[in-house]
């Protein structure tokens, strides 16, 4: 990319940036709208210069047939979690599971590939006897807390699945997680977020704090931290792969490093960060136009859990944030028409180029979507299908009605019936006019 015009043209022909531009047009002031293109181009040019200066851009090699012929002996594991997020009034059924797709291409049919349902939970989070979370009164808007609980469960299940593979001493050449290798824990630091049950923790991390599983030890923050520390000790490389980056951790850290070295002034650093924030510029947007197909950005070490940031500020967990491992973040641009994917690991890569080339090759098997196909496979495997969600909703609805009938109280029964027959007010349920069916 030699000049600003080239960058501008690339922005114009780039779909995800165009989407961002439209978003800006809706939300931002007219002044901001007008110079979005100029600003994006200028930021991209600057970042490109820095990346080149730091020698962070690297070219990856991909020779489809030869690559797979050489790498067919490698065993890879792909992990993903699936959650049924729908709920019904008066109960919060949760179906969650994590699956692993383990494949060694050159093995004989019987041993070539395995689909494992590594962790499963089916239950009602409003049931005080549920085996996942200790029962707690929700302090704020129930949907918000419920969603946090479901997210928390998924994150911990995925991490624990990888831990399980490590504990079982599996001989993987690679392990990949669909999503960040370390999630931002900030949402779970809020007051009133329930602790996991003793039963759940014992099952998830059998080695963990066996003697004193007190409430604090069973809180998401501690359990997750324990899981991450185990993952960090893995003998095989583990990467989290993120499809699209909605933030700019790489660029911000890059600028921060240059500021720390004194190459960028404090003032420039702050103002550029402000610009990135104002224009909602993300790593994906910028790297999409900076990188060519088959190029990667070498990883930077980034702290994901920042003390004093937002809600963690003042939280009982604030001090714990420093204990979380830092994450090595890099990007690979798979093809010309999709945003680069984010590669995260808890440890620095020993064979960075080879590892990245492996990721590139697995993603090239989806030439349009540009994402490691193994993760696409495990995503389909772990997904909670509609029939399963339906069945669980039906089960809990029947359960509620049965309880009401058992009470023999007419008011309770009619209330239960009302709850079950209540329709959500949605545009899809609007009354039809005329003879419309």
């Amino acid at each position: 990319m030699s000049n600003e015009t080239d960058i501008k043209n690339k922005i114009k022909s780039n779909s995800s940036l165009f989407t961002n531009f439209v978003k800006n047009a809706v939300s931002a002031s007219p002044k901001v709208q007008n110079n979005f293109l100029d600003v994006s181009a200028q930021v991209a040019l600057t970042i490109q210069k820095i990346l080149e200066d730091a020698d962070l851009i690297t070219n990856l090699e991909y020779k489809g047939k030869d690559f797979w012929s050489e790498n067919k002996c490698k065993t890879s594991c792909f992990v993903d979690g699936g959650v049924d997020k729908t709920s019904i009034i008066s109960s919060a059924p949760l179906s969650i599971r994590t699956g692993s797709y383990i494949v060694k291409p050159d093995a004989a049919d019987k041993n070539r590939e395995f689909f494992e349902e590594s962790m499963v939970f089916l239950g009602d989070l409003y049931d005080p006897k549920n085996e996942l979370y200790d029962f707690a009164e929700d302090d704020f808007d129930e949907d918000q807390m419920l969603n946090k609980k479901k997210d928390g469960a998924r994150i911990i299940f995925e991490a624990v699945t990888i831990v399980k593979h490590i504990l079982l001493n599996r001989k993987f050449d690679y392990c990949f997680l669909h999503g960040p290798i370390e999630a931002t824990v900030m949402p779970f630091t809020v007051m009133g977020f329930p602790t996991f049950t003793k039963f759940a923790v014992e099952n998830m991390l059998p080695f963990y704090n066996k003697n004193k599983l007190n409430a604090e030890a069973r809180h998401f923050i501690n359990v997750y931290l324990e899981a991450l520390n185990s993952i960090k000790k893995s003998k095989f490389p583990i990467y989290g792969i993120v499809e699209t980056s909605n933030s700019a951790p790489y660029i911000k850290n890059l600028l921060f490093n240059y500021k720390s070295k004194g190459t960028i002034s404090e003032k420039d650093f702050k103002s550029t960060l402000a610009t990135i924030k104002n224009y909602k510029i993300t790593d994906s947007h910028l790297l999409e136009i900076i990188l060519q197909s088959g190029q990667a950005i070498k990883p930077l070490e980034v702290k994901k859990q920042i003390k004093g940031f937002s809600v963690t500020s003042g939280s009982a967990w604030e001090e714990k944030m420093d204990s979380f491992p830092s994450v090595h973040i890099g990007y690979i641009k798979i093809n010309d028409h999709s945003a680069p994917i984010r590669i995260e690991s808890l440890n620095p890569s020993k064979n960075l180029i080879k590892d990245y080339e492996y990721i590139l090759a697995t993603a090239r098997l989806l030439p349009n979507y540009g994402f490691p196909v193994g993760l696409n496979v495990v995503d389909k495997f772990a997904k909670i299908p509609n029939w399963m969600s339906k069945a669980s909703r039906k089960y809990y609805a029947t359960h509620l009605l049965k309880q009401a009938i058992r009470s023999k109280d007419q008011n309770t029964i009619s209330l239960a019936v009302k709850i079950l027959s209540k329709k959500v007010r949605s545009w899809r349920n609007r009354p039809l006019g005329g003879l419309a069916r």
Partner: protein
Amino acid sequence: MNTKKWKSIGTVLGETNISEFYFSLKNYKAKKGDIITTESKVPSSEGKIEEVTVWGKISSIESTNVFFPTEAAQELTNENINIRDTILPTTRDELICKVIILGFTLKNNLKLMPLNYPVRPAAPVSYPSSEDVEALLISDLNSEHPLFIGSLLARDAVKIKIDADNLVSRHVSIFGMSGSGKTVMVRRIMDELLKKKYPMLVLDIHGDYLGFIQKQKKLYPKNEVKLFYPNLSVSSDDKEIIYTLIDKLGNSLTDPQKDFLSSLLEKVKYEGGSLLKYIELLVRKAREYASDSSKSFKNIRPASMYVVVRSLGQVAKKLKNMEQTNFRHRQKMSKLKFEELPDAATEPEKIINKGQLSILYLKGYENLPASAIVSILLENLFKHRQEVEEEIPPFLTIIEEAHNFIPSRSEDKDNLPSVDTIRKVITEGRKFGTGIMIISQRPSRLDETIASQCNSQIVFRMVNQKDQRATTRDSETLSVDDSKQLPNLANGQGIISGQVVNFSLPVQIKFDAELINDDIGNENFISAVENWDDKESVKQRKKFAKDFSNITSIDRRRAN
């Protein structure tokens, strides 16, 4: 029946009903057309809950690998990558089978009863033993006279029998492309019926059934097998047929000429006998009337009469030609004894008799005369069955290349005399024991009324969609899934449905190699040319041809 010995091959899926269900099949454990079972419970009429075995037939199998993205195939192809080298999944094919429910049986009773309560989702699906499947099919068929025809397509060990009583009385249609196995099937049925001494009349255009004559002594010593060549014998009752023949085979006539022809047929008395002789008589008489200055036909000009004379002459010539063609074909098979077709009106027992197979060899005859022959023959035989005396026993008529005798209206040949006759026989035949088996490679070209009267169908490979549609249209028992299978059937594989079986069954027909006509050969023309040697007459002509050619070339007086 020891159901515990049956192997488990899958699990019933999601939503079920009383007519069909889907199940997930273990790899390679069953095929399309297989009979499978699942255990279920149904409420009895007394309100009890009974444990039953539900029987079903796999009507289709679909295989999907939901984990294999389409765009991955694109990359594999473009880069020439072997999928087995990549991390793409290769072993997660999901096999989903659709099952048509045949009914249920109670413990220790193999009577198949209609299911009136859905099968249980998630129930295991089993693969019953071949002996048990065969026992069920036989028990369910409940036939006094079963005929062995082959084995279940998906399972060679399961022998299939069909019900002879329904076959001979309720009419059968056999459809399929050329070479798909129709004749093999007919020969199989004929073999079984001959053993039961059931009389049959075969209208054979190509000589496909002459093997029965050749092997009669060896294979059917207790049967009589007769081979007839047509004799167009007519009586004064057959005026309409004669008129149609002359009208269609001769020149097209104007209305006054047609009037003359009708009057001629009225006036000229004929006691009955050869059609050819009758036409020759008509020619003579017509010429007389024409030269007689039309005393008998005042309104018709002699010129018109001569046109009719010429037309009649043409018909006579055509009939002679056909007779001679048929004769030449017969001569080729000098070892076979051909007899002139007896008059069905006066000597029906010579054609239809207990244990007798009569083959009418029609090769060489055009559609119309062949249709006339068949019409007169069947009309007479049917009359004899209608009469109180019943001079002949019940019999089965096998009509090969049926589209020649019963074409659909769209063929514009519905005035063929055989259409009305066969329509009458097939509609009323059930009462009088005159069953009909129609065989055709083009069901879409058949008369709909006649085809729909066939209560049983045996269908072989069929690619033409028009014919497939016609087959399902005419059948009450052939399902859409069955018809989808038709293009993929191999030689000798067919689907039997209707009253000869209780439910449609894909079958591999037993091939009776010994029943092939040795004289007809196997259409191996390449070998024929390889072994070709000129006839003596041709050799002689070639010998002198050069000399004659030399004379021509030096003859300077000859005009160029």
